[in-house]
């Protein structure tokens, strides 16, 4: 499948980096361990958005919606004792050591259902209109979380008291949960990599580059975009489930517009259409939020400056994020075509 030597080397480097991460993390302090875990969780969200933004050329400003429904679903099925059948099913699955599978399946099915429905409404629109529709649909989810307090506890949010164990291994402390997250992350990365390298993924790139031509060649553009949208939504859901398990708490501000916008910035900052780029973006944005705020009172200014620089580099010089910057140094001749919209 992988013929290209440079490609092979790239895979090797990425895997090496994650092996190194897995080896180093246990020696970090507790706070750093949870920061690394958090970066991986949001890395999945950013990668899933990259499927849309980088590979398909669809800028969604509502990607937190599927993240949100999955994280809320997780929290609800784990805590709502008066919803007897879901809670009993969860308890039963948990007693068999399968609680995590139950949560993931449930969360992902709900994320898939919402992505399928919202995608159906949104995919026909292009450019700014697509942006607006996805934004408003995500606000619907936020509104549900905020107002439907019988189920979501409104702005108080839902506290989850503890994580289910995996085959009897407790994930309560940082290290086991970090390795669990890393495993899920690598599975997602692998699946998404295979997805973008598949003929289907190549078609998406074709659609991004020149939609009319692909239409002329007989591809069903709508269906391709729609399926990409759903798949991205499901991976976003994976990230949502992990987020609830990680933070053991969800509340409406977790899933508001800012989360969607941050995911977009992670992709733009790391480099769109690179998959690992958005993970670097996630690492930078999350660490900045956690670290700069310790030292600088007006930390949002610094974050804002980074956003502006990223966008300007992309717009003015065609440098697409950090990985794009690497590319510029390595082969200055090849300048990637900037997709419009």
């Amino acid at each position: 499948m992988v013929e290209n030597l440079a490609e092979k080397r790239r895979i090797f480097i990425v895997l090496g980096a994650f092996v190194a991460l897995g080896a180093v993390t246990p020696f970090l302090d507790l706070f750093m361990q949870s920061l690394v875990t958090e970066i991986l969780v949001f890395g999945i969200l950013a990668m899933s958005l990259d499927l849309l933004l980088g590979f398909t050329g669809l800028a969604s400003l509502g990607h937190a919606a599927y993240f949100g429904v999955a994280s809320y679903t997780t929290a609800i099925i784990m805590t709502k004792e008066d919803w007897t059948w879901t809670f009993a099913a969860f308890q039963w699955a948990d007693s068999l050591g399968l609680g995590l599978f139950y949560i993931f399946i449930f969360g992902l099915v709900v994320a898939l259902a919402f992505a399928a429905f919202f995608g159906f409404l949104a995919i026909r629109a292009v450019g700014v209109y697509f942006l607006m529709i996805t934004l408003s649909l995500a606000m619907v989810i936020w509104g549900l979380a905020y107002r439907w307090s019988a189920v979501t506890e409104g702005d108080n949010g839902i506290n989850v008291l503890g994580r289910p164990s995996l085959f009897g291994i407790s994930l309560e402390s940082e290290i086991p949960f970090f390795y669990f997250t890393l495993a899920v992350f690598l599975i997602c990365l692998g699946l998404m990599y295979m997805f973008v390298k598949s003929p289907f993924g190549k078609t998406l790139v074709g659609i991004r580059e020149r939609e009319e031509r692909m239409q002329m060649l007989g591809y069903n553009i709508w269906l391709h975009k729609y399926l990409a949208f759903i798949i991205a939504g499901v991976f976003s859901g994976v990230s949502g489930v992990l987020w609830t398990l990680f933070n053991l708490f969800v509340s409406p501000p977790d899933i508001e517009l800012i989360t969607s916008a941050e995911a977009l910035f992670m992709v733009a900052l790391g480099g769109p259409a690179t998959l690992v780029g958005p993970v670097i973006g996630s690492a930078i944005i999350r660490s900045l939020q956690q670290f700069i705020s310790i030292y600088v009172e007006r930390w949002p200014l610094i974050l804002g400056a980074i956003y502006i620089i990223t966008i300007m580099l992309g717009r003015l010089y065609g440098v697409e994020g950090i990985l794009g910057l690497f590319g510029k140094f390595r082969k200055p001749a090849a300048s990637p075509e900037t997709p419009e919209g």
Partner: protein
Amino acid sequence: MKRKFITIIAALGIAFSAGFGSAQAAEVRIGFIAPMTGIFAQIGKDMSNGFKMYLAHTKNKMGPLDVKFILEDSTGKPAVNVRKALKLIKRDKVHMFIGGLLASTGYALAPVSNRFKVPYISPVPAADDLTQRKLFKHFLRSGFTSSQNSHPLAEWAYDQGYRNVVTIGADYAFGYETVGGFHKAFEARGGKIVKKIWAKLGTKDFGPYLPQIPKDADAIFTLMVGPMSLAFPKQFRAAGFKMPMLGGVTSADEFILPSMGDEALGYVTASQYSAALTTDKNKAFVKEYQQRYGKMASYYSESCYTTGQWVDLTLKKIGYKPDNTDAFLEAFKTIRINAIRGPVYLDAYGNPVHNSYIRRVTRVKGDRLGLGVKPNSLWNLVIKTYPAVGQFWKWPAKEFLKDPVYSKKFPPCPHCK
């Protein structure tokens, strides 16, 4: 290969930089979480200033211990509060953390304190259930519950002869609990709540809500927060309503009073604190706060100052051994403070029992009491003091707790039209 090398170097760099901040002897590490950016930043500063002022008075010491005060910006969002608390616990190894603003942050932080067995002291988050039906062992409160001051205010309102009262409150938990407390106590005395209106949180235009207010009601009870507090009295009076205004603390607290005009005159609210208290302690506090920070002292700053005092006294009681968490939790509940707000101690559920002041917004000519506050300012002058008010008011705790927590549906409204 080069890039892999860089990755590893970077990872190691992070590892080493993380090694700082390890524990030292003879200090108490206190984490403080408050919004320093975002829409609640000004309140967050009032909170941290209150606590810092206490530390300034003790020269950053509590007995023999040096105080390591670590301030974290919560941006006002519950999830960020949780992450900052984790940072304080795991990285800074704090002995306790203090702060949070909204009731929702209280609900978010309390389980964190339990999970890591680190005491969390809430000076402001007023969620009723944290000291009622959802108790957490490591949760302590030095502030108040949302409904605590509403009960005596209802009593006062009934004594004024008000019988039919309409309520308008912000549509979220703090609103339900504050209005609910008034409702329950008022109807228990024999009054009637004739209409309950819930305004969207952050409402600036009350146009859609004003026509719903029955003109023949004796008074209106409001619970406004932030910009709503400024907008409501103006629009209410402009629409021609003459009825007296009563309110929860945030409807007219010292934090927004300087921004209000004559429309707020006569507003009666209840709180465990008023900057207008004429005790020597409070006069000194208001004066110094004014000099240090150029602002009127508020219940946010008072509560955080008192929390500092409370922690200090607790540590003294346990021989300045902050590592002894269980002893700290026990001792905290036995402290009695003659605080700026008045005498205060915790009940069996870990909630403060203190005076409840009924306060009326009044314009005072000149520089009142010579405290250096801007002349002709609005003050919350205390018109009645209910001493030693607890969260359950006059009901026995057991009986009170049989009811669900105050919400949109509870208490039910039999007289609503």
